Protein backbone atom coordinates (compact mmCIF):
# COMPACT_ATOMS: atom_id res chain seq x y z
CA UNK A 1 0.00 0.00 0.00
CA UNK A 2 1.44 3.30 -1.02
CA UNK A 3 1.56 6.20 1.37
CA UNK A 4 -0.94 8.09 -0.73
CA UNK A 5 -3.46 5.25 -0.64
CA UNK A 6 -2.87 4.86 3.04
CA UNK A 7 -3.58 8.48 3.71
CA UNK A 8 -6.63 8.49 1.45
CA UNK A 9 -7.90 5.59 3.49
CA UNK A 10 -8.43 7.95 6.39
CA UNK A 11 -12.01 9.18 6.47
CA UNK A 12 -10.88 12.44 8.04
CA UNK A 13 -8.57 13.09 5.13
CA UNK A 14 -11.41 12.41 2.73
CA UNK A 15 -13.73 14.61 4.77
CA UNK A 16 -11.33 17.55 4.77
CA UNK A 17 -10.32 17.29 1.15
CA UNK A 18 -13.42 15.88 -0.57
CA UNK A 19 -16.99 16.84 -1.35
CA UNK A 20 -18.40 15.69 1.97
CA UNK A 21 -17.20 18.17 4.60
CA UNK A 22 -19.72 16.95 7.18
CA UNK A 23 -18.36 13.41 6.83
CA UNK A 24 -21.80 11.80 6.63
CA UNK A 25 -21.68 10.27 3.18
CA UNK A 26 -18.97 9.64 0.64
CA UNK A 27 -16.20 10.39 3.12
CA UNK A 28 -17.56 7.95 5.69
CA UNK A 29 -18.01 5.04 3.30
CA UNK A 30 -15.78 2.17 4.42
CA UNK A 31 -13.76 0.03 2.07
CA UNK A 32 -16.07 -2.87 2.85
CA UNK A 33 -19.17 -0.85 2.02
CA UNK A 34 -17.59 0.30 -1.21
CA UNK A 35 -16.85 -3.24 -2.30
CA UNK A 36 -20.24 -4.74 -1.38
CA UNK A 37 -21.89 -6.79 -4.06
CA UNK A 38 -24.97 -9.01 -4.01
CA UNK A 39 -24.03 -12.65 -3.54
CA UNK A 40 -26.53 -13.59 -6.21
CA UNK A 41 -24.30 -11.75 -8.68
CA UNK A 42 -21.23 -13.78 -7.78
CA UNK A 43 -22.91 -17.20 -7.68
CA UNK A 44 -21.33 -20.03 -9.65
CA UNK A 45 -24.66 -21.33 -10.91
CA UNK A 46 -28.39 -20.73 -10.71
CA UNK A 47 -30.90 -23.58 -10.75
CA UNK A 48 -34.50 -22.95 -11.84
CA UNK A 49 -36.71 -24.54 -9.26
CA UNK A 50 -40.19 -24.56 -7.71
CA UNK A 51 -41.17 -23.78 -4.14
CA UNK A 52 -41.69 -26.95 -2.04
CA UNK A 53 -44.43 -25.66 0.27
CA UNK A 54 -47.98 -25.09 -1.06
CA UNK A 55 -49.37 -25.93 -4.50
CA UNK A 56 -49.38 -22.46 -6.03
CA UNK A 57 -46.11 -23.50 -7.64
CA UNK A 58 -44.06 -20.34 -7.29
CA UNK A 59 -40.88 -20.19 -9.33
CA UNK A 60 -37.61 -20.14 -7.41
CA UNK A 61 -34.04 -19.41 -8.37
CA UNK A 62 -31.48 -21.31 -6.37
CA UNK A 63 -28.08 -19.60 -6.27
CA UNK A 64 -25.07 -21.83 -5.65
CA UNK A 65 -21.53 -20.83 -4.72
CA UNK A 66 -18.78 -23.36 -4.03
CA UNK A 67 -21.31 -26.19 -3.91
CA UNK A 68 -23.46 -24.46 -1.27
CA UNK A 69 -26.87 -22.87 -1.66
CA UNK A 70 -26.30 -19.19 -0.87
CA UNK A 71 -29.70 -17.75 -1.73
CA UNK A 72 -33.17 -18.82 -2.86
CA UNK A 73 -35.52 -16.19 -4.18
CA UNK A 74 -38.50 -15.82 -6.44
CA UNK A 75 -38.18 -16.27 -10.20
CA UNK A 76 -39.48 -13.06 -11.79
CA UNK A 77 -40.05 -14.86 -15.09
CA UNK A 78 -42.78 -17.06 -13.63
CA UNK A 79 -46.29 -16.19 -14.86
CA UNK A 80 -47.59 -17.83 -11.68
CA UNK A 81 -45.68 -15.98 -9.01
CA UNK A 82 -43.98 -13.08 -10.81
CA UNK A 83 -40.99 -13.45 -8.54
CA UNK A 84 -42.85 -13.26 -5.26
CA UNK A 85 -42.67 -15.68 -2.36
CA UNK A 86 -44.60 -16.00 0.89
CA UNK A 87 -42.81 -16.29 4.26
CA UNK A 88 -42.41 -20.04 3.89
CA UNK A 89 -41.07 -19.83 0.37
CA UNK A 90 -38.80 -17.03 1.52
CA UNK A 91 -37.44 -19.36 4.21
CA UNK A 92 -36.45 -22.02 1.64
CA UNK A 93 -32.73 -21.37 2.05
CA UNK A 94 -33.05 -22.11 5.76
CA UNK A 95 -35.02 -25.23 4.91
CA UNK A 96 -32.32 -26.72 2.73
CA UNK A 97 -29.23 -25.43 4.56
CA UNK A 98 -30.43 -25.81 8.17
CA UNK A 99 -27.97 -27.50 10.50
CA UNK A 100 -30.98 -29.09 12.15
CA UNK A 101 -31.44 -31.32 9.10
CA UNK A 102 -30.67 -34.97 9.67
CA UNK A 103 -27.82 -36.03 7.45
CA UNK A 104 -27.06 -39.44 8.94
CA UNK A 105 -29.10 -42.62 8.95
CA UNK A 106 -30.39 -43.34 12.46
CA UNK A 107 -31.61 -46.64 13.81
CA UNK A 108 -33.73 -47.50 16.81
CA UNK A 109 -33.59 -51.20 17.62
CA UNK A 110 -36.64 -52.95 19.13
CA UNK A 111 -37.07 -51.88 22.76
CA UNK A 112 -34.15 -49.49 22.30
CA UNK A 113 -34.00 -46.35 24.40
CA UNK A 114 -32.08 -44.22 21.96
CA UNK A 115 -30.96 -43.78 18.39
CA UNK A 116 -27.86 -45.48 16.98
CA UNK A 117 -26.02 -44.58 13.83
CA UNK A 118 -26.19 -46.98 10.93
CA UNK A 119 -24.41 -47.24 7.61
CA UNK A 120 -26.68 -46.30 4.66
CA UNK A 121 -26.00 -49.49 2.71
CA UNK A 122 -26.56 -51.66 5.76
CA UNK A 123 -29.83 -49.90 6.42
CA UNK A 124 -30.95 -50.53 2.83
CA UNK A 125 -30.12 -54.23 3.11
CA UNK A 126 -31.97 -54.49 6.43
CA UNK A 127 -35.04 -52.77 5.01
CA UNK A 128 -35.05 -55.06 1.96
CA UNK A 129 -34.88 -58.09 4.27
CA UNK A 130 -37.78 -56.84 6.34
CA UNK A 131 -39.93 -56.06 3.31
CA UNK A 132 -39.49 -59.58 1.98
CA UNK A 133 -40.14 -61.15 5.38
CA UNK A 134 -43.32 -59.13 5.98
CA UNK A 135 -44.51 -59.94 2.47
CA UNK A 136 -43.82 -63.64 2.96
CA UNK A 137 -45.59 -63.72 6.29
CA UNK A 138 -48.76 -62.00 5.10
CA UNK A 139 -49.05 -63.06 1.46
CA UNK A 140 -52.54 -63.82 0.09
CA UNK A 141 -52.81 -65.71 -3.20
CA UNK A 142 -56.59 -65.85 -3.53
CA UNK A 143 -59.85 -65.07 -1.75
CA UNK A 144 -62.23 -67.65 -0.32
CA UNK A 145 -63.82 -68.11 -3.73
CA UNK A 146 -60.52 -68.67 -5.45
CA UNK A 147 -60.36 -65.29 -7.13
CA UNK A 148 -56.83 -63.93 -7.28
CA UNK A 149 -55.68 -61.51 -4.61
CA UNK A 150 -51.97 -61.65 -5.25
CA UNK A 151 -51.10 -59.26 -2.47
CA UNK A 152 -49.82 -58.48 1.02
CA UNK A 153 -51.65 -56.46 3.65
CA UNK A 154 -48.59 -56.57 5.89
CA UNK A 155 -46.93 -53.49 4.44
CA UNK A 156 -48.19 -49.91 4.47
CA UNK A 157 -46.89 -46.67 3.08
CA UNK A 158 -47.91 -43.06 3.57
CA UNK A 159 -46.32 -40.46 1.33
CA UNK A 160 -46.17 -36.72 1.59
CA UNK A 161 -47.30 -34.50 -1.23
CA UNK A 162 -43.91 -32.87 -1.66
CA UNK A 163 -42.65 -35.90 -3.53
CA UNK A 164 -42.01 -35.55 -7.25
CA UNK A 165 -44.26 -37.17 -9.85
CA UNK A 166 -41.33 -39.32 -10.90
CA UNK A 167 -40.85 -40.51 -7.34
CA UNK A 168 -44.53 -41.29 -6.87
CA UNK A 169 -44.47 -43.19 -10.14
CA UNK A 170 -41.60 -45.38 -9.01
CA UNK A 171 -43.11 -45.90 -5.54
CA UNK A 172 -46.44 -47.04 -6.96
CA UNK A 173 -44.80 -49.20 -9.60
CA UNK A 174 -42.60 -51.01 -7.11
CA UNK A 175 -45.20 -51.50 -4.41
CA UNK A 176 -47.84 -52.64 -6.89
CA UNK A 177 -45.48 -55.18 -8.42
CA UNK A 178 -44.55 -56.55 -5.01
CA UNK A 179 -48.26 -56.86 -4.14
CA UNK A 180 -48.45 -54.10 -1.54
CA UNK A 181 -51.77 -52.28 -1.92
CA UNK A 182 -51.88 -50.16 1.23
CA UNK A 183 -50.09 -47.27 -0.41
CA UNK A 184 -51.46 -43.91 0.64
CA UNK A 185 -50.66 -40.25 0.41
CA UNK A 186 -51.39 -36.89 2.00
CA UNK A 187 -53.72 -36.44 -0.97
CA UNK A 188 -56.31 -38.47 0.95
CA UNK A 189 -55.78 -36.43 4.10
Amino acid at each position, binding site marked *: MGVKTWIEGWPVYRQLTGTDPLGRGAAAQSAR*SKSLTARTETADSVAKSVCPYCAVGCGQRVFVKDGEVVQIEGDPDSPISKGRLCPKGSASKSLVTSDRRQRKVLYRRPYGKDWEELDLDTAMEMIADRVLAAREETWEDADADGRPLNRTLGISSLGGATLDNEENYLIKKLFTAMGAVQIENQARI
Partner: protein
Amino acid sequence: MAGPNSFYGPLDPAPDAGYVDAPPRMGFFTDTSVCIGCKACEVACKEWNAVPDDGFNLLGQSYDNTGGLTANSWRHVAFIEQPGSSSGGCGGGCSSGQATTTPGAFAGLPSGPSASAHSAAVASQTVPDTGTAPGIGPAFDALAAAATTSSILDKSGSSQFLGMPGSDLPGRTLDAPREDFRWLMMSNVCKHCTHAGCLDVCPTGALFRTEFGTVVVQSDICNGCGYCVPACPYGVIDRREDDGRAWKCTLCYDRIGDGLTPACAKACPTESIQYGELDELRERAAARVAALHEQGVSEARLYGNEPDDGVGGDGAFFLLLDEPEVYGLPPDPVVTTRDLPAMYKRAGLAALAMAATAVVSFLGSRS
Protein backbone atom coordinates in the same frame (compact mmCIF):
# COMPACT_ATOMS: atom_id res chain seq x y z
CA MET B 1 -21.91 19.41 -0.79
CA ALA B 2 -23.31 20.69 2.47
CA GLY B 3 -25.87 23.44 2.18
CA PRO B 4 -28.31 25.52 4.26
CA ASN B 5 -30.75 22.59 4.62
CA SER B 6 -28.11 20.06 5.57
CA PHE B 7 -29.74 19.50 8.95
CA TYR B 8 -33.37 20.50 8.45
CA GLY B 9 -35.79 21.19 5.63
CA PRO B 10 -36.26 19.79 2.15
CA LEU B 11 -33.10 18.27 0.75
CA ASP B 12 -31.76 15.74 -1.70
CA PRO B 13 -29.47 13.99 0.75
CA ALA B 14 -26.97 12.16 -1.48
CA PRO B 15 -25.48 15.18 -3.23
CA ASP B 16 -25.47 16.93 0.14
CA ALA B 17 -23.37 14.05 1.44
CA GLY B 18 -20.76 14.57 -1.18
CA TYR B 19 -21.79 12.25 -3.97
CA VAL B 20 -21.01 13.80 -7.31
CA ASP B 21 -23.44 12.60 -9.98
CA ALA B 22 -25.41 10.64 -7.40
CA PRO B 23 -28.01 8.22 -8.78
CA PRO B 24 -31.68 9.02 -8.07
CA ARG B 25 -32.74 8.67 -4.46
CA MET B 26 -34.22 5.23 -3.87
CA GLY B 27 -36.81 4.24 -1.31
CA PHE B 28 -39.82 2.19 -0.24
CA PHE B 29 -43.50 2.96 -0.59
CA THR B 30 -45.45 0.63 1.67
CA ASP B 31 -49.14 0.54 0.74
CA THR B 32 -50.84 -0.93 3.81
CA SER B 33 -54.21 -1.12 2.02
CA VAL B 34 -53.04 -4.26 0.23
CA CYS B 35 -50.91 -5.76 3.01
CA ILE B 36 -52.07 -9.28 3.91
CA GLY B 37 -49.80 -9.57 6.92
CA CYS B 38 -48.01 -12.62 5.55
CA LYS B 39 -44.62 -11.51 6.93
CA ALA B 40 -42.75 -12.61 3.81
CA CYS B 41 -40.89 -9.31 4.13
CA GLU B 42 -39.63 -10.20 7.60
CA VAL B 43 -38.36 -13.60 6.48
CA ALA B 44 -36.91 -12.51 3.14
CA CYS B 45 -35.00 -9.74 4.93
CA LYS B 46 -33.56 -12.16 7.46
CA GLU B 47 -32.58 -14.73 4.85
CA TRP B 48 -30.77 -12.18 2.75
CA ASN B 49 -29.10 -10.25 5.54
CA ALA B 50 -28.51 -13.22 7.87
CA VAL B 51 -30.30 -11.41 10.68
CA PRO B 52 -30.62 -13.59 13.80
CA ASP B 53 -34.01 -14.71 15.01
CA ASP B 54 -35.64 -12.49 17.60
CA GLY B 55 -36.64 -15.15 20.11
CA PHE B 56 -39.71 -17.37 20.23
CA ASN B 57 -42.21 -15.32 22.19
CA LEU B 58 -45.97 -15.34 21.85
CA LEU B 59 -46.85 -11.70 22.33
CA GLY B 60 -50.60 -11.85 22.03
CA GLN B 61 -50.70 -8.68 19.95
CA SER B 62 -53.00 -10.19 17.38
CA TYR B 63 -50.72 -12.09 14.92
CA ASP B 64 -47.71 -9.94 15.69
CA ASN B 65 -45.06 -11.95 17.52
CA THR B 66 -42.19 -9.75 16.38
CA GLY B 67 -43.27 -6.82 18.51
CA GLY B 68 -41.36 -4.03 16.84
CA LEU B 69 -38.33 -3.08 14.85
CA THR B 70 -35.18 -4.22 16.63
CA ALA B 71 -31.57 -5.00 15.80
CA ASN B 72 -32.82 -8.47 14.90
CA SER B 73 -36.00 -7.50 13.05
CA TRP B 74 -35.55 -4.98 10.29
CA ARG B 75 -39.05 -5.40 8.95
CA HIS B 76 -41.97 -5.64 11.36
CA VAL B 77 -45.56 -6.37 10.44
CA ALA B 78 -48.02 -4.78 12.83
CA PHE B 79 -51.55 -6.16 13.21
CA ILE B 80 -54.35 -3.97 14.48
CA GLU B 81 -57.72 -5.50 15.33
CA GLN B 82 -60.23 -2.72 15.21
CA PRO B 83 -63.88 -3.19 16.07
CA GLY B 84 -66.24 -0.61 14.66
CA SER B 85 -69.84 0.40 14.94
CA SER B 86 -72.31 -0.20 12.17
CA SER B 87 -72.74 3.42 11.23
CA GLY B 88 -71.22 3.76 7.81
CA GLY B 89 -70.00 0.23 8.13
CA CYS B 90 -68.31 -1.14 5.09
CA GLY B 91 -67.68 -4.78 5.83
CA GLY B 92 -64.45 -6.52 6.50
CA GLY B 93 -62.83 -4.75 3.65
CA CYS B 94 -63.17 -1.17 4.83
CA SER B 95 -59.45 -1.24 4.88
CA SER B 96 -59.09 -1.38 1.20
CA GLY B 97 -61.65 0.34 -0.61
CA GLN B 98 -65.28 0.10 -1.44
CA ALA B 99 -68.39 2.14 -1.10
CA THR B 100 -70.05 2.10 2.28
CA THR B 101 -73.12 0.20 1.19
CA THR B 102 -72.26 -3.33 2.26
CA PRO B 103 -73.20 -4.51 5.72
CA GLY B 104 -70.50 -4.57 8.36
CA ALA B 105 -68.40 -7.68 8.89
CA PHE B 106 -70.45 -8.74 11.89
CA ALA B 107 -73.72 -6.99 11.07
CA GLY B 108 -76.72 -8.81 12.42
CA LEU B 109 -74.69 -11.10 14.68
CA PRO B 110 -75.08 -11.35 18.44
CA SER B 111 -72.99 -8.53 19.80
CA GLY B 112 -71.09 -8.24 23.05
CA PRO B 113 -68.06 -6.72 24.67
CA SER B 114 -64.98 -6.22 22.55
CA ALA B 115 -61.78 -8.13 23.12
CA SER B 116 -59.21 -6.01 21.45
CA ALA B 117 -58.75 -3.37 24.12
CA HIS B 118 -58.48 -5.92 26.86
CA SER B 119 -56.27 -8.24 24.83
CA ALA B 120 -53.99 -5.36 24.01
CA ALA B 121 -53.71 -4.48 27.68
CA VAL B 122 -52.86 -8.06 28.59
CA ALA B 123 -50.33 -8.28 25.79
CA SER B 124 -48.56 -5.19 27.04
CA GLN B 125 -48.69 -6.42 30.65
CA THR B 126 -50.71 -3.56 32.00
CA VAL B 127 -53.28 -5.71 33.71
CA PRO B 128 -52.61 -7.58 36.94
CA ASP B 129 -51.39 -11.15 36.62
CA THR B 130 -54.34 -13.52 36.51
CA GLY B 131 -52.37 -16.56 37.45
CA THR B 132 -53.09 -18.52 34.30
CA ALA B 133 -50.59 -16.71 32.13
CA PRO B 134 -47.10 -18.17 32.13
CA GLY B 135 -44.10 -15.92 32.52
CA ILE B 136 -44.10 -13.63 29.54
CA GLY B 137 -41.37 -11.12 29.18
CA PRO B 138 -42.20 -7.43 29.17
CA ALA B 139 -43.80 -6.03 26.09
CA PHE B 140 -41.45 -5.76 23.16
CA ASP B 141 -42.80 -2.66 21.61
CA ALA B 142 -41.53 0.17 23.76
CA LEU B 143 -43.80 2.65 22.07
CA ALA B 144 -46.81 0.50 22.68
CA ALA B 145 -45.93 -0.11 26.28
CA ALA B 146 -45.29 3.57 26.91
CA ALA B 147 -48.59 4.49 25.34
CA THR B 148 -50.57 2.03 27.39
CA THR B 149 -52.35 3.23 30.45
CA SER B 150 -52.74 1.03 33.45
CA SER B 151 -56.51 1.08 33.27
CA ILE B 152 -58.22 -2.23 32.77
CA LEU B 153 -61.62 -3.23 31.68
CA ASP B 154 -64.40 -2.63 34.08
CA LYS B 155 -66.43 -5.57 35.20
CA SER B 156 -69.06 -5.10 32.53
CA GLY B 157 -66.34 -5.70 29.99
CA SER B 158 -67.19 -2.73 27.86
CA SER B 159 -64.55 -1.37 25.60
CA GLN B 160 -62.34 1.24 27.16
CA PHE B 161 -59.43 3.16 25.76
CA LEU B 162 -56.12 1.62 26.69
CA GLY B 163 -53.87 3.47 24.34
CA MET B 164 -52.50 0.45 22.58
CA PRO B 165 -52.07 0.03 18.91
CA GLY B 166 -54.84 -2.35 18.15
CA SER B 167 -57.26 -0.44 20.25
CA ASP B 168 -59.23 2.71 19.69
CA LEU B 169 -58.00 6.22 19.74
CA PRO B 170 -59.25 8.65 22.39
CA GLY B 171 -62.88 9.50 21.88
CA ARG B 172 -63.54 6.45 19.74
CA THR B 173 -64.85 4.19 22.45
CA LEU B 174 -67.83 2.34 21.12
CA ASP B 175 -71.21 2.33 22.65
CA ALA B 176 -73.03 1.21 19.54
CA PRO B 177 -73.14 -2.51 18.67
CA ARG B 178 -69.84 -3.66 17.24
CA GLU B 179 -71.11 -4.64 13.85
CA ASP B 180 -68.05 -3.79 11.86
CA PHE B 181 -64.46 -4.80 12.11
CA ARG B 182 -61.16 -4.02 10.46
CA TRP B 183 -57.91 -5.89 10.65
CA LEU B 184 -55.19 -3.47 9.66
CA MET B 185 -51.73 -4.70 8.78
CA MET B 186 -48.60 -2.74 8.10
CA SER B 187 -45.03 -3.69 7.37
CA ASN B 188 -42.87 -1.19 9.20
CA VAL B 189 -39.25 -0.46 8.39
CA CYS B 190 -36.47 2.10 8.89
CA LYS B 191 -37.61 5.35 7.30
CA HIS B 192 -34.24 6.29 5.78
CA CYS B 193 -34.96 9.89 6.76
CA THR B 194 -33.78 12.80 4.72
CA HIS B 195 -32.43 14.12 8.00
CA ALA B 196 -31.31 11.10 9.95
CA GLY B 197 -30.68 11.72 13.62
CA CYS B 198 -28.87 8.42 13.98
CA LEU B 199 -26.39 9.39 11.31
CA ASP B 200 -25.86 12.88 12.62
CA VAL B 201 -24.91 11.73 16.09
CA CYS B 202 -22.75 8.80 15.03
CA PRO B 203 -19.24 9.64 16.28
CA THR B 204 -17.40 6.94 14.32
CA GLY B 205 -18.77 7.38 10.83
CA ALA B 206 -20.31 3.92 11.04
CA LEU B 207 -23.66 5.33 9.97
CA PHE B 208 -23.41 6.95 6.60
CA ARG B 209 -25.51 8.24 3.76
CA THR B 210 -25.23 6.14 0.63
CA GLU B 211 -25.22 7.40 -2.93
CA PHE B 212 -28.88 6.27 -3.11
CA GLY B 213 -29.79 8.61 -0.27
CA THR B 214 -30.32 5.72 2.15
CA VAL B 215 -28.89 5.44 5.65
CA VAL B 216 -26.70 2.44 6.42
CA VAL B 217 -24.77 1.20 9.47
CA GLN B 218 -21.34 -0.10 8.52
CA SER B 219 -20.79 -3.06 10.81
CA ASP B 220 -17.04 -2.93 10.22
CA ILE B 221 -16.91 0.58 11.74
CA CYS B 222 -19.60 0.54 14.43
CA ASN B 223 -18.13 0.35 17.93
CA GLY B 224 -21.44 -0.04 19.72
CA CYS B 225 -21.48 3.34 21.45
CA GLY B 226 -25.26 3.45 21.08
CA TYR B 227 -25.60 7.21 20.54
CA CYS B 228 -27.77 6.53 17.51
CA VAL B 229 -30.42 4.63 19.47
CA PRO B 230 -32.06 7.57 21.29
CA ALA B 231 -31.44 9.82 18.30
CA CYS B 232 -33.99 8.02 16.13
CA PRO B 233 -37.40 9.74 16.30
CA TYR B 234 -39.08 6.46 15.26
CA GLY B 235 -37.33 4.14 17.72
CA VAL B 236 -35.98 2.04 14.89
CA ILE B 237 -32.25 1.59 15.32
CA ASP B 238 -31.21 -0.83 18.04
CA ARG B 239 -28.16 -2.62 19.37
CA ARG B 240 -27.66 -6.37 19.47
CA GLU B 241 -27.23 -7.84 22.89
CA ASP B 242 -24.31 -10.06 21.92
CA ASP B 243 -21.93 -7.73 20.14
CA GLY B 244 -23.44 -4.40 21.12
CA ARG B 245 -23.32 -3.03 17.61
CA ALA B 246 -26.20 -1.15 16.06
CA TRP B 247 -28.22 -2.80 13.27
CA LYS B 248 -31.13 -1.83 11.09
CA CYS B 249 -32.49 -2.00 7.57
CA THR B 250 -29.86 -1.18 4.94
CA LEU B 251 -32.43 -1.04 2.16
CA CYS B 252 -30.32 -3.98 0.96
CA TYR B 253 -27.40 -1.73 0.09
CA ASP B 254 -25.53 -4.68 -1.42
CA ARG B 255 -28.46 -5.56 -3.67
CA ILE B 256 -29.48 -2.14 -4.88
CA GLY B 257 -25.88 -1.38 -5.78
CA ASP B 258 -26.19 -4.19 -8.29
CA GLY B 259 -29.52 -2.95 -9.57
CA LEU B 260 -31.52 -5.55 -7.64
CA THR B 261 -34.68 -5.00 -5.61
CA PRO B 262 -34.36 -5.21 -1.80
CA ALA B 263 -35.28 -8.65 -0.48
CA CYS B 264 -38.52 -7.60 1.27
CA ALA B 265 -39.96 -5.75 -1.72
CA LYS B 266 -38.97 -8.58 -4.04
CA ALA B 267 -40.82 -11.16 -1.95
CA CYS B 268 -43.94 -9.13 -1.12
CA PRO B 269 -46.81 -11.10 -2.72
CA THR B 270 -49.24 -8.22 -3.11
CA GLU B 271 -46.90 -5.34 -3.95
CA SER B 272 -47.67 -3.75 -0.61
CA ILE B 273 -43.95 -2.99 -0.42
CA GLN B 274 -42.79 -1.16 -3.52
CA TYR B 275 -39.19 -0.18 -4.19
CA GLY B 276 -38.04 2.43 -6.65
CA GLU B 277 -36.97 5.99 -7.28
CA LEU B 278 -38.44 8.08 -4.53
CA ASP B 279 -39.86 10.73 -6.84
CA GLU B 280 -41.66 8.11 -8.86
CA LEU B 281 -42.92 6.33 -5.74
CA ARG B 282 -44.36 9.60 -4.45
CA GLU B 283 -46.30 10.04 -7.68
CA ARG B 284 -47.53 6.47 -7.52
CA ALA B 285 -48.59 6.91 -3.91
CA ALA B 286 -50.50 10.10 -4.63
CA ALA B 287 -52.37 8.33 -7.42
CA ARG B 288 -53.20 5.40 -5.15
CA VAL B 289 -54.58 7.69 -2.45
CA ALA B 290 -56.69 9.46 -5.05
CA ALA B 291 -58.01 6.13 -6.33
CA LEU B 292 -58.88 4.97 -2.83
CA HIS B 293 -60.62 8.23 -2.06
CA GLU B 294 -62.62 7.80 -5.22
CA GLN B 295 -63.64 4.32 -4.04
CA GLY B 296 -64.89 5.83 -0.81
CA VAL B 297 -61.92 5.00 1.39
CA SER B 298 -61.67 8.51 2.70
CA GLU B 299 -59.38 7.51 5.55
CA ALA B 300 -56.48 6.67 3.23
CA ARG B 301 -53.56 9.01 3.77
CA LEU B 302 -49.81 9.11 3.24
CA TYR B 303 -47.28 9.18 6.03
CA GLY B 304 -43.69 10.33 5.72
CA ASN B 305 -43.95 11.57 2.15
CA GLU B 306 -43.71 15.32 2.76
CA PRO B 307 -40.25 16.80 2.11
CA ASP B 308 -40.97 19.62 4.54
CA ASP B 309 -41.92 17.51 7.54
CA GLY B 310 -39.80 17.18 10.67
CA VAL B 311 -37.36 14.75 9.12
CA GLY B 312 -37.33 16.26 5.64
CA GLY B 313 -39.48 13.41 4.37
CA ASP B 314 -38.83 9.70 4.63
CA GLY B 315 -37.03 7.53 2.12
CA ALA B 316 -39.49 4.85 3.22
CA PHE B 317 -43.04 6.19 3.44
CA PHE B 318 -46.45 4.65 3.89
CA LEU B 319 -50.09 4.69 2.88
CA LEU B 320 -52.10 4.29 6.07
CA LEU B 321 -55.78 3.74 6.71
CA ASP B 322 -55.90 5.36 10.10
CA GLU B 323 -53.97 7.77 12.29
CA PRO B 324 -50.26 6.97 12.57
CA GLU B 325 -50.60 6.35 16.31
CA VAL B 326 -52.89 3.41 15.59
CA TYR B 327 -49.95 1.70 13.88
CA GLY B 328 -47.51 2.72 16.62
CA LEU B 329 -45.98 5.48 14.50
CA PRO B 330 -45.22 8.94 15.93
CA PRO B 331 -47.67 11.46 14.47
CA ASP B 332 -45.16 14.26 13.95
CA PRO B 333 -41.59 13.05 14.09
CA VAL B 334 -38.79 15.61 14.20
CA VAL B 335 -35.14 14.87 13.62
CA THR B 336 -33.42 14.99 16.98
CA THR B 337 -30.52 16.93 15.52
CA ARG B 338 -32.65 19.71 14.08
CA ASP B 339 -30.95 22.31 16.27
CA LEU B 340 -27.49 20.90 15.87
CA PRO B 341 -26.20 23.68 13.58
CA ALA B 342 -27.54 26.34 15.93
CA MET B 343 -26.04 24.53 18.86
CA TYR B 344 -22.71 24.20 17.13
CA LYS B 345 -22.95 27.83 16.19
CA ARG B 346 -23.51 28.84 19.79
CA ALA B 347 -20.89 26.42 20.99
CA GLY B 348 -18.52 27.81 18.40
CA LEU B 349 -19.24 31.38 19.46
CA ALA B 350 -18.73 30.43 23.07
CA ALA B 351 -15.47 28.75 22.21
CA LEU B 352 -14.36 31.83 20.29
CA ALA B 353 -15.34 34.02 23.21
CA MET B 354 -13.40 31.78 25.57
CA ALA B 355 -10.41 31.86 23.30
CA ALA B 356 -10.68 35.63 23.06
CA THR B 357 -10.91 35.87 26.81
CA ALA B 358 -7.87 33.69 27.13
CA VAL B 359 -5.98 35.80 24.66
CA VAL B 360 -7.10 38.94 26.38
CA SER B 361 -6.08 37.63 29.75
CA PHE B 362 -2.79 36.46 28.30
CA LEU B 363 -2.26 39.82 26.76
CA GLY B 364 -3.50 41.41 29.90
CA SER B 365 -1.06 39.51 31.98
CA ARG B 366 1.67 40.77 29.80
CA SER B 367 0.69 44.29 30.24
